[in-house]
Every structure is written in structure tokens, then in C-alpha cells.
């Protein structure tokens, strides 16, 4: 009973916040609703027994990706009139995308009702390994069977990261940086001098 209640709560909230993400006028509100959708998706994962994935979803998407997203969107200066003016122009493209998504969803449902696809199992039954926690089961698969794919994914991410840095990094002349070790190594003796000038005479430094 509790499970069913939690499922409908999470699923309902997720669908609702997903819809509001699209419908909200204010982009910051959209991002916040999107975060709520992520959060409810994590709740559904927990219900499905995939607590590791759920936590990763919250840590990676809600904790890092969405924060950066919010960061960027908050600083945008959006002119709503201009947005609405582009509506007619973009309408056919939007409808096309919607049609493609709908057809894919429809095909997916039809295929699903014909019998579900079980990955990596010839017999079609993927039973979870007994006595293993979620984390251990994922680790056992990732570091043995899918080791190559896992490391390839890591390398691709590394290349993407370096690529982003290379593309955006530019040396600017005339910038005065700070040498922290030099600052820390500075002592009072070399930074201050104590002079006792005669009355009426100035000090030249």
C-alpha cells in the first residue's frame, strides 16, 4: 500500500513537474521544476530497488548539472516579447519534433507489448545476482564484463573535458596574476620600514 502510494506520488509529481517545466513562462522556474522532476525520478528509482542509480542521479544531475544550468539561466536577460515573436517561425519545426517523438513513443509501446527486450541475457530472464547489494552488482559488471566500454567512456569524457578547456582557454596579455607562494613568503621585515623623521621634514620612500 505504501509502495503504491509512493509510486503514484512520485510518478504524478514527476509528470506534473515535467509538464510545468515546458509550460512555465519564466526560464528559472522551468529549471527548478526540472530539478523537481529529477528528484522524483530518483524516488522512482529507489522504489524500483536501484538505490545506487537514484543517488547518482541526485548527486550528478541535481547536485552538479542543474546547479550550473540554474547559474547560467539566472544570468540570462530574456525578452519575452522577442520570444513570442519567434513562435510562428519555429512552430513547424516544433510540430515536426513533437511528431517524431510521438511516433517513437508509439513504436516503443507496440514493441514493448510484443515482449520486452532483455539485454545481455540469451534466455531473456535477467535475475539480479543473489546476496549482492546494488553497488556491488554494478561494480562486478562494470569492472569485469564491461571494463573496456567503461574505460572507453572515461576516456571520452576526459577528451571532452580537455577539448572544452582547449577551445575556451585563451591567453590574454596585460593581466596581472597573483603569485600566491610569493605573497605567503613575504615577511614583515621586507614589507615595512620604521623611520623616525625630524619634525617638519617629510619622508621619501
Amino acid at each position, binding site marked *: *500500500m*505504501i509502495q503504491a502510494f509512493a509510486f503514484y506520488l512520485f510518478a504524478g509529481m514527476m509528470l506534473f513537474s515535467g509538464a510545468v517545466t515546458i509550460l512555465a513562462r519564466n526560464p*528559472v*522556474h522551468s529549471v*527548478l521544476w526540472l*530539478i523537481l522532476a529529477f528528484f522524483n525520478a530518483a524516488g522512482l528509482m529507489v522504489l524500483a530497488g536501484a*538505490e*545506487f542509480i537514484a*543517488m*547518482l542521479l*541526485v*548527486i550528478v544531475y*541535481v*547536485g*552538479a548539472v542543474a*546547479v*550550473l544550468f*540554474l*547559474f547560467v539561466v*539566472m544570468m540570462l536577460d530574456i525578452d519575452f516579447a522577442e520570444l513570442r515573436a519567434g513562435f510562428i517561425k519555429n512552430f513547424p519545426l516544433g510540430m515536426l519534433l513533437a511528431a517524431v517523438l510521438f511516433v517513437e513513443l508509439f513504436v516503443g509501446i507496440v514493441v514493448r507489448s510484443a515482449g520486452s527486450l532483455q539485454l545481455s541475457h540469451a534466455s531473456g530472464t535477467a535475475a539480479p545476482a543473489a546476496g549482492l*547489494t*546494488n*553497488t556491488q552488482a554494478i561494480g562486478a559488471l562494470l569492472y569485469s564484463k564491461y571494463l573496456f566500454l567503461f574505460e572507453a567512456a572515461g576516456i571520452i569524457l576526459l577528451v571532452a573535458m580537455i577539448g572544452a578547456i582547449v577551445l575556451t582557454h585563451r591567453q590574454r596579455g596585460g593581466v596581472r596574476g*597573483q603569485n*600566491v607562494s610569493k605573497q605567503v613568503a613575504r615577511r614583515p621585515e621586507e614589507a615595512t620600514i620604521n623611520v623616525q623623521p625630524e619634525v617638519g621634514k617629510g619622508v621619501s620612500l
Partner: protein
Amino acid sequence: MTAFFQGLGLSYELAWTISTICGILLIAFPLMLGVAMIIYADRKIWAAMALRKGPNVVGPLGLLQSFADGLKVFLQETIIPAAANKGLFLIAPIITFTVALMAWAVIPFNSGAVLADINVGLLYVLAISSLGVYGVVIAGWSSNSKYPFFSAMRASAQMISYEVSIGFILICVVLWAGTFNLNDIVKAQKGAISLAYAIPALADVPVLGWKINGFVANPLLFPMWVMFLISGMAETARAPFDLTEAESELVAGYQTEYSSMAFALYWLGEYANVLLMCALNATLFWGGWLPPLDIPVLYLVPGIVWLLLKILFFFFIFSWVKATVPRYRYDQLMRLGWKIFLPVSLLFVFLVSGWLMLTRYAV
């Protein structure tokens, strides 16, 4: 507790629901009381280090100061700026406060005395602590005011930076303990380190042969604890990393436009977060509810007492640092996070996993 309510003739689901709610109240009420007292302690410690007396008027020794402040704040008017985004403006402090309470669900107070004994406990803590930034960011944006907005931008950059190194530090602990479950991490620290393991002849010698409960005595994990303590201060935006509310630059940062109860929720949430960081320090590195030394007579003291003592000890360190260390500059903060903590913690992930491969998991 579920079994107790089932014994009263309730169905399992009802008993579970009631016992969980009781557990939440059992943690939240003492926590709120603890936060009130810890604010008083913070002010007293800070005052003592500045050679002042601190709060000493309300109640004996000023003990009721926090409650008087709470009452005062409760009776004040909530002011919402005209240009603010009203809904978000009010939700933001609630988010901060709720998130500060949520993470306590997985902190073990004694063997098995934990509200949610989940396998991914540490990941849960990491996930919840990464949510803390939203309260600040939303407050900064919805206030529609310049200083809170600067503060929000600072907060999001700061928290993301330090979460990276905290993640790597936690990986070291998890590798050594072999589990994400906080209760099991505490258990893995029982007699974790002793000179007697290296030199068997010392096993019966008093002081030298004693077993220490806690990863902190492990030479590979001690630097990780130091970094965790500092990162914890940055993560909770405590001095010397309180750039999000630097009063000399940003008025009061993201709290500038807040008044009355909404302001108090930030106040309480912040201290609940600091207490959580202290509890995590104790649980992950100092043996949690275990006594400091693996000596039978020390186990006569209940585990929760040891945990509370450790939390108070770490809170004293937090206050001490707040009272004595000047505030960091923002570029110094970023440099410390990205150029020092990140490479060093990554190096220690290699060292710890390499050491374990060569010793514990050697084929």
C-alpha cells in the same frame, strides 16, 4: 521500533509508518534543541576568544539566550520586498532548513540506532549536501537584489568546487571500509589501527599496544581527515570561508532581504548543517559511536555519548577557527579547492587503492 508497534496489534505497514514518524521526531526535536544550545555555545566560545563575556543576561549564564532570540524573531513581521519573486522567496529558506534535517536520517547514533539503515548511506549524505546550495541560490535570485545575487553566484561556485574534493575524500574512506553503509563504516573502524599490528610483541603493552577506533590514526587517511575538516567548513560556508555572507562586501549575502522567521530558518539550517559536518567527521574518521580506544571498559559508556562528545569536540574546532582565522579572499578559496585539495585528494585515492591492492586484496 516497528516490532513494538506491531506488538500493539497494528498491521506491519501502519506500525512501520508510525515508528518512522516517531524516529523522525526523535531526531528532529533534540536536533533543534541542540542547534539552539550550540548557537549559544558558539557565541560563548567566540566571546571567550575575544576576551568578552558573550550572552550572559537571559537565564542563568545566558543559557536561554537562543530561546529569547527565537521568540523575538517569531514575533517579528515577515517583510517581502516588492520586487521579489514571492513564491520562491518564501520557499528558499524552507529548502535550506529541510535539507539540513534530511541528511540526519542516515547518521548512526549507536549500533543499529539509525533511522534509515540504507546501503548507500554515504552517497545519500553526499546527494543531500549537494542540495543545500539551492536554498542559497534561489534566495539570491528571488530577492531581486544585487548583493544576494552576488552571494548566490559565489555560493554555487564554492559548493560545487568543494564537493569534488569531498567526493574523493569519501572514496578513500569507502575503499578502506569496503562499504557505503555508515553503520558498517563505523564498525570497520573498530580497532582499525594499532602499533601491535606491526610489532606483535607490543600487543600486551599498555599505551603502545592499544587499538585505536577510527580511521584518523591511519597514516594514509589522516591527511584526508584534515582536508575533510577544511572542506566541511567551506561546504557549510563557515568562517573562514563565509564568502557567501561576507558582511564587509555583501551586506549579509543571500540573507540580506530576509527578516523574521524566514531569516531564522537560515540561521537554524546553517547550524544544523555545521552539526551534521561535525557528526560526519566523527562518524567517518573518528569512530562514530565507538569509544576512542578499543578497551572493553570504555564500551560500558553508551555509544551515543561518545558520538555527542565527538560532535561537540569538532564543533569547538569549528568555533575556534571562526574566532581566529581571517576570511579568505575568493580567488584564494578557489585556488585551495581546485589547485590543492583536488589533486591531493586524487593522489590519495591512488595511494589508498594501491595500498589496499598490495595488502588486503593481494592475490
